[in-house]
């Protein structure tokens, strides 16, 4: 027995979580929280004192990527490798972090201070590339800012003591300052802004309410801050820095209140990226919603799932109530007719927002009709799609709405117990949802006899342990039961035989969050939006090579081009719009020529993509489509549960071919071999993951076959595939040394004011030099 290990901690955890076999994941999560990894002695102890068997614990602990079996450094650096981060150079950032920490082998530095890992998606796609160190997220990280990031973390974050802030009690409030506290905003620095606000207001002895609000959707402009003074027009500030706070406060709330609104020219804020340079030149970032880009960004949107976005305090139940919250719930319970609820949903034409687009009312009717005394309801919040963050935003910003929707659904299908399955990688969502559950229990909206009605519902939170396949409902249920997250044959569907063998309703966060609006406004009102077969709105996370990324909610039937150009403001940095990747690893790449494709379930499937969970990543002409296909397949391949032959082996063989194409080792016949494998995997896999995994490959072959052919000849037309290109510096070089300083591997050398050289052997082709060169002297061949 390891003497350092305090085994009593394990006993305490088991005492708190439970001794049944289904508790294995929560127990392991708690154990890992204490020890930072899973020591074998702890696992053996768990087996001694619970119903969990050694085979079960070994199987589960090695299945989920959250669990680690070896000790880690004091701090964990997670470099996001989601789609948006990937296309914005997360790879270079990863190597730069390793380089900075002097890690040559393994993932932990010599002092055991930091462990570095790549993670599938942090869900901060608009801040790409994003890096998380413990609880702190850094956005727009570049190879040249990695060292600042680590320094900042060690100086400011590592030993941060949670502060308490006492607002001034006396006096009349002069107004309200709203700070976005969605994950993107926090990653953009909004927590620091909030602290600066608190300090400043305390110093000025101003009584102003600081109000945390959920996601505004304009993640490309984070951190956002809005000043609301009664009787005056609200002023929205974007990309605010803590250093801007005194000025903003002085402008609005100082004694004589000169009140000058400064509007920055729209062009300039659009072009600016969040960077140290921008920080050094504090500028005022006031926006007006009537400004064209903002109006465009918000104009085409229709907020149903995200109703009152940017206004609601996510943790304020009273405010939610004031803004029509729980009205739908009350009306449902007042009428007390579950069939009527299902009929309303039927009329609305609502289809599940989790990816498959199955008619919601039909699913509900099946659960309702299924025999069984006990029925369950599950919120599938295990959004693991790299490049998508809608579910996270919805759970973070509208926890009461999601739960209200769940209660309505539970009432309609007759479920009395439920679980909110939320990715552990979304700590803020977990926290907010937990708070909301507690508030609602206290208010009598959950528990026994809700609102005096006969219906009862018990809800609890379960943190998903990191397996994309658990988005598949039968795998999700397996993990809830304490097993490896491996899907089972359907039918029987969960509606018939789900959790613990009981009829179970599984819907995702977005689906639940649409329900209150539909109940309040009627099924017909929802059905008026959208297309013939796809009704209502859809929330997308718009990211990638786009000017204005963010969380958007648009009516079904909008075209891809409208999303990219009108809402997103077109492709960034003046590059050419090449394609859009819709639906993540299950979806496909739709070329710019098909930009008139409408966004609805049928049209997307028809072009070979899929609605998926709603990732919408824009690609430009510097993105290589073969590499994109490889990227997505490497994701699904590593997330395959390994159960069925086609997916376990087939995706591996496909990845091998794609990798060899990207490395210039392609052979004649590779395209045909890929197509053959793709058809096998698509046609014969057991679950949705395998059945859709070939989509990104098949669509890229279909629309960009010439790029595949070029790779077989050893060329990468987009100049992206590292093994097929080389970097050099031409005579335009002015010898400014920027590239040499920026290079993560010290491959660039030269005398100042003379032409620099790149050592091809050392060069890792990250492109940092090309990005930073002021005279465009770095050439890719």
């Amino acid at each position, binding site marked *: 027995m390891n003497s350092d290990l305090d085994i009593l901690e394990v006993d305490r955890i088991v005492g708190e979580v439970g001794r049944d076999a289904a508790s294995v994941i929560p127990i392991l999560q708690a154990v890992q929280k204490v020890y930072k990894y899973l020591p074998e002695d702890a696992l053996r102890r768990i087996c001694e004192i619970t119903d969990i*068997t050694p085979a079960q614990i*070994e199987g589960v602990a*090695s299945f989920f990527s959250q669990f680690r079996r070896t000790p880690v450094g004091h701090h964990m650096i997670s470099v996001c490798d989601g789609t948006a981060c990937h296309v914005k150079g997360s790879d270079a950032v990863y190597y730069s972090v390793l380089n900075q920490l002097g890690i040559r082998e393994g993932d932990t530095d010599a002092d055991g201070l930091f462990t570095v890992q790549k993670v599938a998606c942090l869900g901060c796609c608009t801040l790409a590339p994003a890096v998380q160190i413990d609880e702190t997220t850094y956005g727009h990280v570049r190879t040249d800012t990695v060292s600042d990031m680590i320094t900042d973390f060690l100086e400011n974050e590592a030993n941060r003591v949670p502060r308490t802030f006492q607002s001034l009690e006396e006096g009349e409030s002069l107004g309200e300052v709203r700070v976005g506290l969605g994950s993107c905003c926090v990653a953009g620095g909004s927590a620091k802004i909030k602290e600066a606000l608190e300090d400043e207001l305390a110093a000025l002895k101003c009584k102003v309410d600081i109000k945390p609000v959920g996601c505004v959707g304009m993640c490309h402009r984070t951190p956002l801050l809005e000043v609301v003074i009664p009787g005056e027009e609200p002023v929205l500030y974007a990309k605010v820095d803590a250093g801007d706070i005194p000025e903003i406060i002085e402008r609005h709330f100082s004694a004589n209140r000169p009140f000058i609104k400064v509007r920055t020219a729209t062009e300039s804020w659009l072009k600016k990226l969040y960077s140290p340079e921008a920080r050094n030149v504090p500028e005022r970032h006031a926006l007006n919603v009537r400004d064209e880009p903002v109006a465009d960004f918000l104009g085409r949107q229709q907020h149903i799932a995200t109703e009152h976005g940017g206004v609601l305090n996510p943790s304020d139940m009273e405010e939610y109530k004031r803004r029509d919250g729980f009205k739908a719930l009350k009306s449902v319970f007042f009428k007390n007719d579950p069939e009527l609820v299902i009929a309303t949903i039927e009329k609305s034409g609502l289809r599940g927002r989790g990816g498959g687009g199955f008619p919601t009312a039909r699913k509900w009717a099946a659960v309702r009709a299924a025999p069984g005394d006990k029925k369950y309801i599950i919120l599938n919040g295990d959004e693991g799609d790299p490049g998508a963050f809608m579910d996270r935003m919805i759970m973070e910003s509208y926890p009461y709405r999601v739960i209200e929707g769940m209660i309505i659904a539970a009432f309609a299908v007759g479920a009395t117990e439920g679980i909110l399955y939320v990715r552990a990688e979304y700590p803020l969502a977990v926290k907010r949802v937990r708070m909301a559950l507690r508030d609602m229990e206290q208010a009598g909206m959950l528990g026994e006899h809700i609102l005096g009605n006969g219906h009862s519902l018990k809800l609890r939170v379960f943190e998903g342990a990191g397996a994309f396949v658990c988005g598949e409902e039968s795998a999700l249920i397996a993990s809830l039961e304490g097993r*490896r997250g491996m899907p089972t044959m359907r039918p029987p569907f969960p509606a018939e035989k789900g959790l613990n063998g009981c009829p179970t309703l599984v819907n995702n966060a977005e689906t639940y969050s649409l329900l209150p609006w539909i109940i309040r406004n009627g099924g017909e009102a929802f059905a008026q939006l959208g297309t013939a077969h796809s009704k209502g709105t859809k929330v997308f996370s718009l990211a990638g090579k786009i000017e204005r990324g963010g969380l958007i909610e648009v009516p079904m039937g909008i075209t891809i081009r409208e999303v990219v150009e009108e809402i997103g403001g077109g492709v960034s940095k003046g590059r050419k719009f090449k394609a859009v990747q819709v639906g993540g690893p299950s979806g496909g790449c739709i070329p710019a020529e098909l930009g008139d494709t409408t966004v609805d379930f049928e049209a997307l499937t028809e072009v070979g993509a899929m609605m998926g969970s709603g990732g919408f990543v824009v690609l430009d002409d510097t993105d290589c489509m073969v590499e994109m296909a490889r990227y997505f397949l490497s994701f699904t391949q590593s997330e395959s549960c*390994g*159960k069925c032959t086609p997916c376990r*082996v087939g995706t591996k063989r496909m990845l091998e071919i794609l*990798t060899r194409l990207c490395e210039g080792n392609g052979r004649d016949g590779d395209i045909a071999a890929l197509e053959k494998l793709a058809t*096998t995997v698509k046609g014969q896999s057991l679950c949705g993951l395998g059945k859709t995994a070939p989509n990104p490959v098949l669509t890229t072959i279909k629309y960009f076959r010439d790029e595949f052919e070029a790779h077989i000849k050893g060329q990468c037309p987009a100049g992206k595939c590292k093994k097929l290109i080389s970097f050099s510096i031409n005579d335009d070089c002015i010898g400014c040394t920027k590239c040499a300083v920026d290079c993560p591997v010290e491959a660039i050398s030269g005398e100042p004011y003379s032409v620099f050289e790149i050592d091809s052997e050392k060069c890792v082709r990250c492109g940092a030099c090309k990005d930073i060169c002021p005279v465009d002297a770095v050439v890719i061949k």
Partner: protein
Amino acid sequence: MPKLLINGLAVEVNDGTTVLDAAEKIGLEIPTLCHAKECEPETSCMLCVVKNNKTGQLIPACSAKVAEGMEIDTECDEVQSARQDILNLLLSEHVGDCEAPCTRVCPAHLDIPLMLREIEQGNDEAAAWIARRDLALPISLGYVCPAPCEKGCRRKEMDAPLKIKNAHRQAAESFQSLKADFPNLGKKVAIIGAGPAGLSSVWKLCQLGYDCTLYDEAPLAGGDLRKHADLPAEVLDAEIEWLERAGITFKLGNPLLLQEIAGGYDGVVFASKEKPVTLFGDAFYAQEHVLTVKAIGNGKEAALQLDESLSGEPVPTIGKRFDSKVGRLRQSEVRELEKNCVAGESAGKSAPQLEAARCLHCDCRKPVTCKLRKYAEQYGADQKAFPADERGHIQLIGHNESVVFEPGKCIKCGLCIKITKQAGEELGLTFQGRGFNTTLAVPFDETLASALKKSAQACVEICPTGALAFRSE
């Protein structure tokens, strides 16, 4: 009681029956690797796919439940090709030889590794029987054979190949008494030509249970083998006598009356240097060969062809069986296989035992019962259809225990995991990791033996491949 059609035949079964069980009810066997009656379906290998004609989808028969009005096709081209794809994928990650290279290159396909295991364990009778059974003239071959098997031996990568030729000669010499317990099929066959090919052919047919008569115009059996300078005549005579004692009728030294012979027998094998111009009726041909062991192989092959023709049952001959191939081993793999050479007490062991103990046992322990091999053969699978960039490593787990686990042969069906659970093993087995890197493992890195205290036999039996096998088999 839902009614459905399977391959056009109406079936009525209880609600909740699987398509696989419904098909079995009407005598249709659907292939599966991951499914066993005593376990809940895993639905992992996907070999059991059948087509649901109503939806056009391929569904796994082991877990798909029947439904009223279903129309299932278990044999259409789409299903056949889907099954072939599955097998090709499984074989693309299969690290293992169906046959050891020595056996593979031996034209007579002597089961060398098994014979060596018997010698090593001192089972002289069993070893002698294997040599005799497979070679017909194991002692004579011990004098004349150029031993291609030794050139195939993987032990040469380490030091020197096994002395296989000596081994089968010594084994056969050490145990001469007869063990002749063959079935009686009640069918008569004639073999014309008493050279090595003819002798081998008649011996194989004799083992299969035929009433055999061997004809030759020459007064002595043995053909060209008699001219071999290295082979003492008395050695050959003794071996021929041995065959006679086994129940073969020898008719030598008379002119052959072919019409007469043909009329009196159910089947005939011609064994000669050149193929007769016409072969009548159920006659097969075994070519005599300057390489005696090749002639022996030809004789066996012709015997099996005749048997197939007479019995109407397909007889897979070794050379035609599906054969997964690893190819050249890496040095690290040779060292891994060396784990199979259990370092035991050398005291009290005979020289042949010590020599046999050098065998790396690189053969598969389940060449006959392996379901993957069986279906690969049945569906014409091709191991190179989906080639891997790099083949997996040979790995042996539990090498010094009674059961050996070879991860490279595991198809991740999970049957053994279920069996250990059912048997109430304290540790049992589990899957470790995820996706392509999933492996079968013992929790907490304990030994295989500690995981299989109660269920070793059952696990080895249920394992559809050679991944779990008894070391000594």
